[in-house]
């Protein structure tokens, strides 16, 4: 090996080592990559929280929250009112899902959700693999893809080997889902591999095989079948009979051992929306402008209060980002990646008194618009935005209202 070849080999090795060790783990589930229009106008998530942020293998974690399918759902995106499925965004089966409910209805199967209605969800998980996970609730929508909810970090400790997961069949038999049926399947597969290798091995006994047989087959031409011997035919017959017997034997063995089986189950369930008291707030979005240099969203609203208590805007949430009016609401981020700006909502116009209809202006100013790649909303095909406004009365009761409408970007000033 000359000097250049050695040098080249060393450089190659260094590159491999550097690339390998410079790789950093990634945790996100692509929420930033999703088009802002999708994030703002599909599913509004709020009150998402975990029962615990730290647990051990085999312990239970409950994910709770609320979602509202947007009334402003884009026409070019398949609707959540057709087929959707409440899911969990975690890396692989680091948890097992023991239960999943929307408005109390088990959502083992797919469902559909009405736009503008409110749904409370609760997912019960059991920790399976130690690690630190950014856990998101997700709603998968048929033909549209996943609509990702806010992520919360959770840390799982303990011994993965101690994980247990069993179920009881309708016959009262308890099965370990981690191992059930594997040894049986592996044994049957091994039997078939052995039979295949016997057939392969029969031909290997004739080595040298390739070149001599190619020469002979080429030489014999139309009469190449003469190369097949009586012993070959006998061997093929035996293997064929054994194959058919093994298929039949396996089938009868299985029907004898598991006499009652059910086909795979599927279907769709109905999930009724949450029954809500009529809201005292009526809001119209009159104007929305996003000033790109200032990362500032300015929204003009007309608000009517038909309730008995003055109402103030405490929060604006859109595309998974939360902008809090600290004069009304105190919020502590759940962790370092919680997408909440605790003092980023400014309201001009003050509170709305009972029976009053007035115009207010809301400013949501924060670098999150930029860092969470929401500024590409200006590239949306229909330039419509949406979000949830949370009004609070004097008693602290909350009234969520969705607002939506066209948005004009401001490129300077």
């Amino acid at each position: 090996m000359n000097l250049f070849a050695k040098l080249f080999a060393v450089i190659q090795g260094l590159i491999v080592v550097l690339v390998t060790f410079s790789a950093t783990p990634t945790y996100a589930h692509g929420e930033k990559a999703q088009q802002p229009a999708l994030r703002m106008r599909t599913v509004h998530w709020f009150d998402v929280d975990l029962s615990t942020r730290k647990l051990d293998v085999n312990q239970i974690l409950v994910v709770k929250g609320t979602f509202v399918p947007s009334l402003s759902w884009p026409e070019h995106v398949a609707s959540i009112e057709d087929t959707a499925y409440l899911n969990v965004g975690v890396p692989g089966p680091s948890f097992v899902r023991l239960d999943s409910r929307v408005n109390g209805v088990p959502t083992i199967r797919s469902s559909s959700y009405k736009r503008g209605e409110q749904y409370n969800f609760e997912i019960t998980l059991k920790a399976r693999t130690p690690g630190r996970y950014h856990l998101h609730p997700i709603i998968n929508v048929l033909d549209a893809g996943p609509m990702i909810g806010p992520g919360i970090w959770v840390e799982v400790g303990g011994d993965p080997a101690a994980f247990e997961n069993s179920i009881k069949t309708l016959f009262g038999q308890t099965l370990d889902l981690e191992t059930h049926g594997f040894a049986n399947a592996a044994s049957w597969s091994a039997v078939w591999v052995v039979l295949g290798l016997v057939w392969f091995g029969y031909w290997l006994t004739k080595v040298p095989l390739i070149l001599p047989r190619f020469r002979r087959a080429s030489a014999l031409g139309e009469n190449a079948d003469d190369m097949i011997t009586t012993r070959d035919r006998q061997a093929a017959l035996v293997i064929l009979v054994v194959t058919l017997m093994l298929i039949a034997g396996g089938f009868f063995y299985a029907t004898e051992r598991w006499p009652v089986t059910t086909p795979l189950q599927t279907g769709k369930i109905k999930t009724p929306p949450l029954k809500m008291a009529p809201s005292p707030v009526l809001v119209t979005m009159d104007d929305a402008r996003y000033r790109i240099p200032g990362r500032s969203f300015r929204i003009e609203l007309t608000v009517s209060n038909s309730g008995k208590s003055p109402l103030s805007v405490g929060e604006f949430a859109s595309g998974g980002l939360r902008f809090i009016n600290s004069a009304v609401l105190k919020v502590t981020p759940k962790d370092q990646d919680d997408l909440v700006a605790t003092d980023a909502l400014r309201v001009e116009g003050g509170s709305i008194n009972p029976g009053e209809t007035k115009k207010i202006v809301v400013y949501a100013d924060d670098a999150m618009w930029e860092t969470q790649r929401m500024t590409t909303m200006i590239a949306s095909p229909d330039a419509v935005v949406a979000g949830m406004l949370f009004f609070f009365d004097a008693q602290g009761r909350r009234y969520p209202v969705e607002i939506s409408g066209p948005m004009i970007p401001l490129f300077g000033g």
Partner: protein
Amino acid sequence: MSVLTPAEAAFSPQEAARVDAQVDWVVIPLFVVLLGSVFAFQFALLVGDWDYWIDWRDRRYWPLVTPLVLVILPGVFGYAFWKLLRIPLGATLSIIGLTLTGWVSRYLNFHEFAGFPMNMVLPSTFIGVGLLIDCTLLLTRSWFFTGIFAGFLSGLLLYPMNWPLLAPFMVPVEMHGTLMTVADVMGFEYIRTAMPEYVRIIEQSTLRTFGDAVTPLTAVFAGFLTILSLWFWAWVGSLGVKAVWLRKVV
């Protein structure tokens, strides 16, 4: 006057036989790996999730789609092996390759890397299909009859061939007031973020004639289609062996 082959011209008969054998020991393992890799790729593209997950192997589509796809390489390579070498091994060898790569892939990718339990992602067994095709070909020495008999049996018997593997997962279970199979429960419990429940294609379509006989009807239908599939791919194989470059290489 007999013409000496290059090997005979260069070596003594014993040495020539040894060279021929050495060619076998190099080429055959390489060929098994090649077939396995190509087959695994092709199978992943055309069958994919249907065979990855235990809760996808339904009575309707899995036994219909799988044999149609499964006979592609056995048809092509089976024809080539038969025509060029008169060895009825193409189907078995390619499916052994698929089986080995399948197990390696499920273990390394699905179990070790992604963390799914092996029983949820275990490969089906198809070697019987290869044996049916190869043995029938040798006994009939005809691709026409191999298609008729082995093609039909491959479609017909794929489900019973795998029933010993699948049956333990089709035992009924009640979960939160819903009837499910063990496989359904696994699909629900072991979270697949990118695979919502509705993605599975479970018994969609209208093949429900003759009362309750979903599986037998599907199996017979799959049998007929597999005849055509095997013939077609054997024909593709016949085009392949005519390739001038191939003959020059060999």
